[in-house]
């Protein structure tokens, strides 16, 4: 059809540290040794907590868990770049980032054991609880972004979603509102190739997730999500843009879910071991360790010390969690509304009377 081209868009891909830990000198961000090591520590912490959660679940000591092993660069690094007053509006596959943003391991354990106590607001951080309804949280992020702008608060909002989430109407509405409002929101899509059993190419016909930004007139970029340095560069730029009134950004972090969707899932039903093995070679932690070693700021001794320290920290948390006794059953009646209507108070009394009777604890 011979007609006039009126618009032209390009989508870019960024990788700084390749799969062998080799860095592109031109793109390499200037990060201090302390900060680099900090990045590494938080990624290890995320990995170790993840593994422990799975173990505990396997032992029946907690409920269903959704691990994020393999995706640490994609969520931990952006979280580390947040300022204290920035907002974290996560989905459910960023446990490591949540630790960065003030949540404790004990909270995580409570959450995965079915207690709302795991969702209490971390002190001094603007971290929202885990959001399970896929895509729905992105709208909250945009509303918060609007409020920040309205209040003259220079906070940015970092919100996470998966590749699957991009199919939901709420993601679309959030991107669109964010574009119109120029809300200070960074949309960070962890494209881990799968939404439970649905492979990325069946999720959407678009070649990239990043190009979805074009629909909303906002910048979008595809990043090697297993590359901590690329994630650093991309997230920093997007967060800065948000804080400086430049509006929203969509970052597609190309990564991989190395583990099962949740501990209730059996990935063997839908994907090959080969595929998983291929991605294991791109593990962000291995890659980053090589980079640190090449910079001579990391070695086996440091590694061992770190592992020991973190394992001990997790042990303490697990013990603390398992020692918790005061999780009163009746607390649900207290948080339906700000004040308790008569009927709910009546039900609460009935509930307590009954429990006293049932436990013989009259």
């Amino acid at each position, binding site marked *: 059809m011979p007609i006039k081209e009126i618009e032209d868009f390009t989508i870019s891909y960024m990788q700084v540290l390749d799969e062998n830990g080799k860095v592109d000198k031109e793109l390499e961000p200037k990060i201090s040794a302390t900060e680099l090591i900090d990045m590494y520590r938080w990624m290890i912490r995320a990995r170790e907590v993840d593994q422990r959660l799975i173990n505990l679940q396997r032992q029946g000591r907690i409920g269903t868990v959704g691990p994020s092993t393999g995706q640490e660069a994609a969520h931990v690094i952006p979280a580390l770049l947040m300022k204290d007053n920035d907002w974290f509006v996560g989905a459910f596959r960023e446990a490591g980032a949540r630790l960065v943003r003030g949540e404790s391991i004990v909270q995580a354990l409570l959450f995965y054991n079915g207690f709302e*106590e795991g969702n209490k607001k971390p002190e001094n951080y603007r971290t929202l*609880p885990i959001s399970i309804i896929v895509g729905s949280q992105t*709208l909250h*992020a945009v*509303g918060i972004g609007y*409020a920040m702008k309205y209040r003259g608060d220079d906070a940015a909002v970092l919100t996470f979603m998966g590749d699957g989430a991009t199919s939901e109407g709420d993601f679309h509405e959030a991107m669109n*509102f964010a574009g119109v409002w120029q809300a200070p929101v960074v949309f960070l899509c962890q494209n881990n190739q799968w939404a439970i059993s649905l492979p990325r190419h069946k999720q959407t016909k678009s070649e990239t997730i990043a190009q979805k930004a074009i629909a909303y007139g906002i910048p979008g970029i595809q990043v090697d999500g297993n590359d901590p340095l690329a994630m650093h560069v991309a997230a920093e730029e997007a967060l800065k843009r948000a804080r400086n009134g430049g509006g929203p950004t969509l970052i597609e972090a190309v990564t991989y879910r190395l583990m099962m969707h949740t501990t209730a899932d059996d990935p063997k039903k839908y994907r090959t071991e080969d595929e998983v093995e291929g991605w294991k070679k791109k593990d962000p932690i291995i890659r980053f360790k090589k980079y640190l070693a090449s910079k001579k700021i990391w070695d086996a001794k440091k590694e061992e010390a770190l592992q020991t320290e973190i394992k001990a920290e997790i042990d303490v948390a697990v013990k603390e969690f398992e020692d918790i006794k005061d999780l009163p059953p009746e607390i649900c009646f207290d948080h339906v509304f*700000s004040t308790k*209507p008569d009927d709910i108070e009546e039900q609460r009394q009935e509930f307590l009377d009954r429990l006293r009777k049932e436990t013989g604890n009259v």
Partner: protein
Amino acid sequence: MSKMNMVQAINLAMLQEMAKDDSVVVLGEDVGVDEGVFRVTAGLLKKYGEDRVIDTPLAESGIIGTSIGMALAGLKPVCEMQFSGFSYLIVHQLEGHASRFRARSQGDWTVPLVVRMPYGGGVRAMEHHSESREALYATITGVKVVIPSTPRNARALLVAAIRDPDPVVFMEPKHSYRAFREEVPDEEEVMEIGKAEIVHEGNDVTIISWGAMMRPTIKAVDEYQEKTGKTVELIDLLTISPMDSKTIIESVQKTGRCVIVQEAPKTMGIASEIIARINDKALMYLEAPVKRVTNYDVITPYFGRENYYFPNPERIYQALEATVDF
């Protein structure tokens, strides 16, 4: 003090609350320049500017979802669904988030928002512009559902809703928007959410209604009292959820008879819940079955037929008669 219709009264509530508290913002489709398709948001944009009176893109889930975010961040969004018929797009955000943030975080996060929506029949508009589905919202624990019936209580309840720390679905009977005028005080007036109002006391039968149905109900009651010399206790429910059982129960314990008038279809309406509560606590006082006067269990008719289906004064009168003479 001046006489105004419900549109003006609701508008007054927003004007005044916005003046008082700069965390109150208004958002929705056509609420700004157009001042709302029913002009309920008249003057707000001019007075408070684009930052506080936001014409949003056409997306209901977007409106409620961003409102939840604003509320989490300390604002008090008052958002509008253009018609309740399009509000079913927001159910997942209400059920999944607005209603749950408090419980989910044991009180650390709260969502003080108001969703205003005109509902019900009487405006001769197309499909989806005339149904009454307050019951659907009442099935969602953790959101309050308020339905005013007059300009004055609409104003006072909306003020309460805006100040409420919990999410409130505020359903406006569009049939009553301009149907009549009432004195509304200039100075602030607040009514408590969660309380029904005894419009007038009586001894022979209790009649309960809400929203647009209050008008035919009052008409029927007046006529019935006049003709029979009996006295009717008339209750305006005002808050649908959480429901004021106490006022209902005490009244029915006194009168022993009850009629409920509801614009919505018969099945799974608020009337059913009222009957269940009477069953729990006043069954043994009943001298007749509670009588429901409702729409029928049909798909909301297009406006060409709707008047046949709504409760009307004749049906209500007959229900009073049948219940008292049972």
